[in-house]
């Protein structure tokens, strides 16, 4: 997957977790927490969905890397580059 595809995938997960959110003007460099009011339960869900959909394991000490779209894509790029987009 390319970084752009990974970004789409994260958007898809966010849409799934928070269907009432407007994700159209999400700013990639600003923390999700500031834009979307996600709580700790929701963050766990991003991790769980990555595991469910792509078998990507994010260890607990790396959860901080998923703070914004930009940092998430950067963090996931090496982990997901060999995966095919579904």
């Amino acid at each position, binding site marked *: 997957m390319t970084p752009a595809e990974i970004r789409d995938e994260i958007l898809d997960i966010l849409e799934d977790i928070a269907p009432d959110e407007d994700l159209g003007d999400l700013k990639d460099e600003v923390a999700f927490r500031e834009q979307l*009011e996600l709580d700790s339960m929701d963050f766990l869900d991003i991790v769980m969905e990555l595991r469910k959909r792509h078998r990507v394991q994010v260890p607990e000490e790396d959860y901080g890397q998923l703070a914004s779209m930009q940092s998430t894509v950067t963090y996931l790029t090496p982990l997901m580059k060999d995966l095919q987009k579904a």
Partner: protein
Amino acid sequence: MYDTIIIGAGMSGLAAGIRLAHFNQRVCVLERHYTIGGLNSFYRLGGRDYDVGLHAVTNFTPKGAKKGPLARLLRQLRFKWEDFSLSPQIGSTIAFPDVQLQFGNGLELLEAEIAAKFPAQKDAFQQLLAKIIDYDDLDENNFGGSTRAVLSATISDPLLIEMLLCPLMWYGNAREHDMDFGQFCIMFRSIFMEGFARPFAGVRLILKNLVRRFRSLGGELKLRSGVERIKVKDGKAIGVVLDSGEELEGRRILSSAGLVETIRLCEDITEVDEQQAGQMSFTESISILDKQPKQLGFDRTIVFYNDSDTFHWQRPTDALCDMRTGVICSPNNYMYDESDGDLPDGVIRITTIADSDRWMALSEDEYKLEKLRWYDRTIASAVRFIPDFRGHVIDTDMFTPNTIRRFTWHDNGAVYGAPEKRLDGTTHLPNLFLCGTDQGFVGIIGSIVSGISIANQHCLRE
């Protein structure tokens, strides 16, 4: 072999099941009753639909709200706000002999009422609000502590203290007399700061959504499948034996049956401390009217009444029921969509505190007689606070602690479970967990959140 076996198809068990099935676990929900819902089920009688428990779905926040338990559970279960079809209340009342406080969804009306009726307490009430807002419901460590102590340190008028406690204890306090401060804050937010709503179709709509989702994710639901025993080997739960004798294996077990009730099922335990079980049980008297309550001059959604200046929250000590306090609910009095119209019948439901031991000790004939007697007394007590509707009753139903026990198997027919909660959901076995009432969160929304959070904490992290 299941990844997780869940005991109980009430709100908490079904919610936990959805979480686990969504993340590809093999899950089975086992329910002893022939239907789902537990303490908040539904039934049909004499051609009419009834709800067992539903007065109000608490924690109501409007579409688009991102904070609070309702928003949280919708996200976690991947439901849309519309899926629960919640219509907000018209307005509710705390009715004591000389003072009434009205409240609606959101704090505004209650604040105005307190300012008008307890002007000297206006600032004290703001101080109390600050304490409630500071309380962190995800931190278990400050859950305990006496609410009465906090209230009397803040508010100097004892009547206001009793009036605030009345609805909050009624809708979620397992402890007699006093309340854990954490529970008080949770209930205060859910009732006074968020609010009440109801689906036009009643609780069946919520339950059917939960079950449909659970099944569509591959979850298995087995009704008439009571767990008779939890099998234990080398200090771990390894599966369950059903009432039928059938055995199922599971890597872990999540039980919503209650703490004492669950521990009693474990093979390795010979004696349980039954004193730990909850004591607060209720009767519910349902009257079907030939008119909408509004046509009789009654438009309140919920009325919490108490007939003196002191509110007594305890199991009755000298009679089957306590007639001093109760809750009156009219499911008609919600702001339903115009397209829904009115409910087919007028309905008034009244809850009173009951002594389960006394109810349980009656013979079958006495039981029938006492039900009639206490239905009449309950209505007579309630019409001191609302218009007398007795000339308009065309059908009735009543249930008692015996009914609750018979269909949910909770000790003492306790509705809010044990006073000592197991907030972390653990038991003496490393792979047996508790969710629902005895874990800590009560009510429809509370128990759904409980199922979700225990599933997340203990069943999904590996």
